[in-house]
């Protein structure tokens, strides 16, 4: 993955520490990020905050797919989000908590030297 002059790139764990389809949370400069390694080997990072419950739990959701899009479902009220764009694909007829957008922030992530690196600049 190529990104333009990242302001901050933080290594959070070894790629081999990640279990396929089982997310983890990482604390990156005070921001909670949910990191997923999928069955196909790809790695994705989104905000750990679930906008529909205001709890930091997205890393504990179930991964899957809607059509061709890889997804993550909130473990609290089961909204489904795209892991590629962060877009909320299924709202379960609910609105996000006050002050939050329905979509998730997506963070660029790369694997370098066996380390998973989160790039905080980009989307926010």
């Amino acid at each position, binding site marked *: 993955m190529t990104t333009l002059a990242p302001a901050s790139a933080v290594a*959070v*764990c070894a790629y081999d*520490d990640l*279990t*396929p*389809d*089982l997310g*983890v*949370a*990482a*604390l*990156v400069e*005070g921001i*909670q990020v949910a*990191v997923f390694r*999928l*069955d196909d080997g790809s790695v994705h990072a989104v905000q750990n905050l679930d906008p529909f*419950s205001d*709890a*930091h*739990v997205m890393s*504990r*959701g*179930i*991964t*899957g*797919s*809607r*059509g061709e899009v*890889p*997804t993550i*479902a909130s*473990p*609290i009220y*089961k909204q*489904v989000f795209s892991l590629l764009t962060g877009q909320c694909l299924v709202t379960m007829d609910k609105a996000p908590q*006050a002050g939050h957008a329905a979509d998730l922030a997506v963070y660029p992530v790369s694997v370098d030297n066996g380390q998973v690196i989160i790039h905080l600049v980009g989307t926010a």
Partner: protein
Amino acid sequence: MTETQQIVVVGGGMVAHRFTEAMRARDTEGRYAVTVLAEEPRAPYDRVALTSYFTGKDPEDLALGDPALWDDSLVTLRRDAKAVSVNREAREVTDVHGVVHPYDHLVMATGSYAWAPPVKGGDLPGVFVYRTIDDVAALRIYVERRRKELGRTVRGAVIGGGLLGLEAAGALQELGATSTVIQFSDRLMNLQVDEGGGQALSRLIEGMGVKVRCNTATDAIKPDKHGHVGSLKFADKGEQLVDVVVFATGVRPRDELGRDMGLAIGERGGIVVDDTCLTADPAISAIGEVACIQGACIGLIAPGNTMAEIAVDRLLGGESTFPGADTAAKLKLLGVDVASFGDAFATTPGSLELTYADPVAGVYKKLVVTDDARTLLGGILVGDASAYASLRPLVGAELGGDPAGWLLPEGAIERPNVDLPDEASVCSCNNVTAGTIRHAVTDQGCHEIGEVKACTKAGTSCGSCLPLVKKIVGTELEKSGIELSHALCEHFDMSRAQLFSAVQVSELRTFSQIVERFGSGRGCDICKPTIGSILASIYNEHVLAADRAALQDTNDRVMANMQKDGTYSVVPRVPGGEILPEHLILIGQIAQDYGLYTKITGGQRIDLFGARLEQLPSIWKRLVDAGMESGHAYGKSLRTVKSCVGSTWCRYGVQDSVGMAIALELRYRGLRSPHKIKLGVSGCARECAEARGKDVGVIATDKGWNIYVGGNGGFTPKHAQLLVEDVDDEAVFRLVDRYLMYYIRTADRLQRTAPWQEDHEGGLDAIRAVIMDDSLGICADLDAHMARHIDSYEDEWAAVLKDPERLRQFTSFVNAPDEPDPTLAYVEQRGQRRPANDAERSSGAVLIAPSRLEVRS
């Protein structure tokens, strides 16, 4: 319409309910307000199901329709408000409290009263009639009191061998009294069945332990030396010792108000109305049993409901008229099916009777057909009335084949497949035709039986037509090429039950293999947990083993219940609710050490809230070390077996309910299922464990245990239904094993036992046949499957604590494993903490931040 018109309904029975319900459903402009004056101190209830009051039902179970009807702003229900006079000039009704109710239109729906012949001794204590909840409750109290006073079984007698008499005899049996039916006529139910049917009925009823005495007139009821009912004296000089007598000698219309206000009264009573249910006074209608329509009063609910609908239709400007009463009836009396319909006594000139009798099996069937044996005119079915739903709508239509097909036991000759004509009435209670049901499917988009019921009301009263409704809906769906979709989600076209078989037969054990073979894509939050649950049910391997952790739903994934702020609650197992003091102390100590909010659950255990993901292993280590284990409060699995204290301590207990509850809980702990499962065990009939609100309820009797199945609390509460009576411990285990395993294999995803049981083809009877008579030949397989589960059980928390690989999952952050989620915030309430709300967070009122909690590890 400018002003709302006032309707007053005198009487608060089933027909009054139907009138009010139909008016509110059809009067969309709010032209009429309805006031119902009920004599009884309760809302209208299902009088037809009165006997079920003895089989453990509460009065609320007899409630009719949606209780919200009585909250409608255009409906007023006055209970305990018998109408005592009507002033037709002023258009006013006065009730027993002197309250005056003005009306624009008056509907008389006073029904009937139970009539008892003037027999000497008819006023002794111990003589009852059988008509209202209060009658039935008084009978129950009297029988229970006399049993204690006499110290032996109470002897009961029912005078009258008609429909109501047999109901009453059944009620006496339910109360533990013996019963004798005294019938004046030469056979039971002489209005509905002929001689052959009466004989079959007598044999079947006597087989249930009820004595039958036909051709007997009662001369007097004689008191015992204390002045209670003591014996019956018959016209033939015979005598019989009895302790309680129930008169079921028929009903008479309650037409006294009609007489008082000068309305025309029929020859045999009843307020005379025309085919539109109007009396000679255009401001007064009469409906139901009090109405004398086409020259007679009719004591059946279906014509009463029809009259209510007609009265409503006419008030709203409709044109409907009374089509004549359908006196067809299908009943289950003391477990015996009896049905009678159409010209049951072959009064049509030239009609032929075809009969089939099997005295050994206790079956009698008769069809009455036209002289060419082609057209059905009526029939009688005793002992096996399964053909009733199909036959009754065919009255007047061609049978389309050999009529013998309908008489012989099912399968002996193929029954002709007849398409009902559109105008054939399918649901006589609600007057719904086959055409209406077809229309609901084809034009109103109803694709499920529930939708058809809601849309047409077919099958919503007595339910006897439901098999036929289902068949019509199925045929219609097939014709229009609509297939009911059972697909689990976009990744699997199969239902859960199909997937269960597929996984079992293919012996595939990972999600990726299963989705590759039977599905598509990468799965989702619906199919992954379903497959996780199916694999756990089949193999009973650890839910976090191999690639399974990623399949598990929110709670199973970390074996704790996620709360709204992302922390968890912890519930150790407390089998049967029996707990050692040292375990109680430990739980309290843990709660104190970790600052957990503590609450007693509804399932007799203790819930500790607010534990963070990374705290779960250390909390569980302390519990497991002290000998406690996972309570599976997080799983779609067995939760708890609730019990009362039972015979070991209780003064009333007749069995060791705690012992049974613990045995059941240890037997089924860890059993994964389509939805959560709860059991209850009560030590006597007082039912303090509320076992009938559980998926499986076991209730002690003095001979063993009664098993009830399919009870649920939750959104649509259901009482469990009786599966079997008076069985021993071994049979409890065997039958509950099979019931649960059969449910696990065949239920839909997130379908609890009550709807599963209801949707199961043939309902509870068919399930009983599967698990008791082995009708599918799978009992050995179910038994072996459950035995495997019991043998392979291990505490999943103890297993995780031993496995460093799995423990890695219980960290807050992959790069800061012990750092608590910094956003958690709590306030104190009633001496404990709870998550802070938005206002408290922004005002800075947060008292406890998690990082300040001292954690012992």
